């Protein structure tokens, strides 16, 4: 994965590191690797989501370890140099810069029990369609809604989960969230 860092242009790599440190600072729920990957591919960079996810994990681990050990920027760069000798120069520059600017505000909790075990809901996109006919039924005519949930898993990776609902299923889904809101209000 370290060699894949070579193919990522400096500005994209800087953006990635920014997102990672913002996630560690709890400013954003996670790193949107899918979206970043799409933009990289559009720019003609050959990289897939898995590669990007691996790189994200490596950098995230790097920053969180540095935070736990209260490393200064110079210590971090030294440690980096010892661990990964094949990192391109621009990557080291980016890491040094990001850590210098925002490293101090990353606080790592020592208590593993406080680590989230559930994902975070980020956003929902939807589309409403009507299935008109199929090979088994010429007159289907049923409306359904497709939703895509953007979720951040505990490690901070953002993924999309999509599924379909018929009208009755949707109504039930809606009702459950209304109930949730009511309970949250009273607690």
């Amino acid at each position, binding site marked *: 994965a370290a060699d894949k860092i070579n193919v990522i242009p400096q500005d994209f790599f800087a953006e990635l590191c920014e997102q990672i440190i913002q996630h560690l600072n709890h400013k954003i729920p996670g790193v949107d690797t899918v979206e970043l990957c799409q933009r990289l591919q559009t720019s003609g960079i050959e990289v897939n989501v898995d590669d990007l996810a691996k790189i994200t994990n490596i950098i995230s681990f790097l920053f969180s370890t540095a935070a736990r050990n209260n490393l200064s920027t110079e210590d971090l760069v030294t440690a980096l140099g010892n661990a990964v000798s094949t990192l391109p120069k621009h990557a080291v520059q980016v890491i040094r810069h990001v850590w210098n600017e925002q490293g101090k505000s990353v606080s790592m909790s020592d208590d593993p029990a406080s680590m989230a075990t559930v994902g975070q*809901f980020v956003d*929902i996109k939807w589309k409403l369609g009507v299935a008109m006919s199929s090979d088994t039924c010429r007159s*289907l005519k049923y*409306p359904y809604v497709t939703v895509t949930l953007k979720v951040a898993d505990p490690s901070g990776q953002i993924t999309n*989960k*999509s599924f379909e609902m018929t009208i009755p299923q949707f109504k039930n889904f809606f009702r459950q969230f209304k109930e949730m809101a009511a309970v949250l209000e009273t607690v």
Partner: protein
Amino acid sequence: MAAAEQQPAAAEGCKPLGALLNGIAQAAYYGKADITEELLRGQLYPEAAPEEFRALRAKMGGLLQSIASADMDFNQLEAFLTAQTKKQGGITSDQAAVIAKFWKNHRAKIHESLVNQSCWDNVLKNMNWRVDLKSQSRHIDQINTPVAIVEMELGRNGQESEFLCLEFDEAKVSQMLKKLSEIEESMTALTQTT
């Protein structure tokens, strides 16, 4: 007088016909693959010769398929069945009555089955939730805030599920409700125009 060919006694053929239609539906729409032709013949038309029964089953199956595919309403069905009684090699008016009664009782369920058969994407199979009081957190400011923990079971029909466990604070639930309201508005607009 309907031009029907030789078939098992017409008058009492009506009771087994209803059961035959049910058997055909079980196999075609309700997924009961073990309801074979032999089984049906043995149980419903024991006196009929195999080829005779095969022809009857094929004819009834074909009619049911046409009716189900068009999801016929009462008027369409009446017109369709009347035409069938006038055809050479069609059905008797008694049989038409049995078919009409069967469709009336099974239409919704068969249509639902056809709808499910054309759903190949993930569906929400189940959903559970509870509200917790967050007592530990990375953030001091999140202590003692209520959060909803939602577990969603997602998967394709007949395949293994994936369980998605998500946390929603009050703001996130509001965000969700806002989007769901949008969906509901669109649905209402849609069902009003169709």
